[in-house]
């Protein structure tokens, strides 16, 4: 059979990284639930450990099922490869820990998931890595925050919770002028809506728990390298360009001109930090990715109808979605996110905290929980849950009020979702 012509996104979502199992003929990807893999000989074992031959040794470092997921997501993101991790937070930590140590500095968006904000603001500071936060739309602020010890710029494709769209081409340009890479959290957009690497980002990661999986069943993360950043030219990354005595004195940039980050992240990061993904989790996420294009299209269709309904409801004070002309990122979203700006957004009811509680308690189809990107519709009250540690001033700076409600629109019949919201709004108004 001749080579593949030029597989498109939907084809890659089903086939990248997998073919019928040569041993059994199984068409679906098998789950390789094994900790380790038998060596053919002593020479084979030594060659695997010394990266003379490639293969699987121990499932913390790699696993055949997990490798299919890694190839598939890399293909969908147009990257060179990826590393699956125990969670999205593990993917973020692996990225940072591979690139820097104590004394380093990060410039990050203020509009981050709460867990990421905690990691940067509190936890990494304890390990000597500091972060300056900049509003995602403050282009001059990004540039001004860079210091000689800055190693990374970091933001989310769509910021949390205000859905500010990150101007990836501009921020990537600023990062590259400074000789540092741009890392992007693309969880809320998935590669179906946005491919950050094609827009100039260098590394992209996902909480695969969300849209990639899509079924609310497993926790996982994945980081993809675009292979575009020249670590040697930058001169700031001795971690990748100098001999590493923790791994055969390997110079990762000599071993692979474009894949040094992935080499070190797997050989050091998974080996030493150990936040790997279970093959069973990888398999479940693969089931989700097979329908990613179908699901994302439906997510966007349902979101458009719900946003339209809420924007015209008299008890709703504000709807914060970039598809609306009133949103500050509307123009940028039309440019960078033509298929839609995600199905997670917030809105404010014209009521107090108690009315917000009544609204949530009256919902039947929407599930009240702390997750997004499920096939089922979800709801949460940020001020009392995900952002409860923040002061009123900090909440206001993040665009959150006591009446703010966050929705994650699922795949149900959109008329049923609107009926549910109508009923709950009526209950809250009383």
């Amino acid at each position, binding site marked *: 059979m001749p080579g593949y012509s030029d597989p498109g996104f939907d084809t890659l979502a089903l086939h990248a990284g997998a073919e019928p199992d040569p041993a059994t003929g199984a068409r679906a990807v098998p789950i390789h639930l094994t900790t380790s893999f038998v060596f053919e000989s002593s020479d084979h074992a*030594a060659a695997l450990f010394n990266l*003379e*031959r490639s293969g699987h040794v121990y499932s913390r470092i*790699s696993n055949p099922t997990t*490798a299919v997921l890694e*190839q598939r997501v890399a293909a969908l993101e147009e990257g*060179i*490869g990826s590393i699956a991790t125990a969670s999205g937070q593990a993917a973020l930590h692996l990225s940072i820990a591979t690139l820097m140590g104590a004394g380093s500095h990060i410039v990050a968006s203020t509009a981050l998931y709460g867990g990421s904000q905690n990691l940067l603001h509190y936890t990494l500071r304890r390990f000597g890595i500091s972060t300056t936060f900049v509003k995602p739309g403050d282009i001059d602020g990004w540039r001004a925050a860079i210091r000689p010890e800055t190693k990374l710029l970091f933001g989310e494709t769509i910021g949390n919770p205000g859905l500010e769209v990150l101007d990836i081409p501009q921020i990537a340009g600023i990062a590259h002028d400074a000789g540092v890479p741009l890392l992007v959290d693309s969880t809320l957009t998935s590669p179906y809506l946005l491919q950050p690497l094609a827009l100039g980002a260098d590394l992209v990661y996902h909480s695969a728990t969300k849209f990639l999986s899509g079924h609310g069943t497993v926790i996982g993360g994945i980081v993809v390298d675009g292979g575009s950043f020249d670590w040697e030219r930058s001169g700031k990354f001795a971690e990748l360009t100098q001999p590493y005595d923790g791994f055969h004195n*390997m110079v990762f940039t000599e071993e692979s*001109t474009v894949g040094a980050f992935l080499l070190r992240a797997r050989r050091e990061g998974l080996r030493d930090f150990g936040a790997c993904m279970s093959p069973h989790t990888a398999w479940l996420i693969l089931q989700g990715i097979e329908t990613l294009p179908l699901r994302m299209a439906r997510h966007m269709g349902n979101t458009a109808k719900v946003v339209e309904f809420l924007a015209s409801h008299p008890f709703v004070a504000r709807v914060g979605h970039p598809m609306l002309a009133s949103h500050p990122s509307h123009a940028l979203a039309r440019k960078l996110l033509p298929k839609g700006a995600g199905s997670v957004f917030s809105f404010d009811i014209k009521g107090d905290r108690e009315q917000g509680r009544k609204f949530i308690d009256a919902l039947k189809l929407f599930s009240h929980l702390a997750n997004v990107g499920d096939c089922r519709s979800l709801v949460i009250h940020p001020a009392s849950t995900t952002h409860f540690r923040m002061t009123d001033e900090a909440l206001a700076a993040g665009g959150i009020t006591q009446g703010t409600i966050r929705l994650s629109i699922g795949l149900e019949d959109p008329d049923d979702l609107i009926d549910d919201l109508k009923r709950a709004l009526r209950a809250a108004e009383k």
Partner: protein
Amino acid sequence: MYFEVNGHRTYCYTGGKSFDAAKPTVVFLHGVLNDHSVWGLQSRYLANHGWNVLAVDLPGHCRSEGEAPGSVEEAAQFTTALLDAAGLAKAALVGHSWGSLIALEAASRLKQRVSHLVLVGVAYPMKVSKALLDASLEAPQQAIHMINVFSRATLAPPPSTLGPGNWVWGSSTALHRRVLASNPTTNVFHRGFKACDSYASGEAAIAAISCPVLFVLGTEDQMTQARAAQMLIEQAKASGKSVKVARLPVGHHHMTEAPDETLFAIRDFLAQ
């Protein structure tokens, strides 16, 4: 490590081992818009199994300075000069695609100084379509996409240089872009393709070599189809050479689509 070759600083990857003049040496030559890293697994294995390895970045490519070769003959002269600069009385030459033509031409000139010749993904003549030649000059990013499509035969490649999770379509694209960007004055993509397209000494060269030759061919290769090596194979046999042929079920990137099979073919041949 670096050598001074023809007055220019030249990079050679040594597989993580120091150069040892007491060991036999194998020189790896990459193809158009590639560099030493395409030989990652094969070169590192041999470096740890009794061989000196010099996986070179050709002049004007990535870490190596100098004018990028404009012909197979120029690149062969460079290869000869590299052996001289490294003080090598003898070496095995392993080339992929354009690198296979360079290895062939160099072997014909170096005669007894070449112990083994390995031609991976070779074709002769190695004609490049006008559309691709033009695109490499006028729309190189589009041409990079084209050669990636033509080079691949599977959507599920095995673990290779970067290990499991490596997406070789993406890594090839990224490497092509990096190599192209590494030379701000010369389009090494177009120059390399022109060198392949214009090489006309293959028959004479294969007749002139004085070492055994291994052909490693991809049965699904659309860039250099396996049948396009037949003339060289027959010519080599007709002129009394020791010939081996390894046909692998891969496209044009043997080293990533069948890393072990490619390694074993080279390793076993070099052991002769």
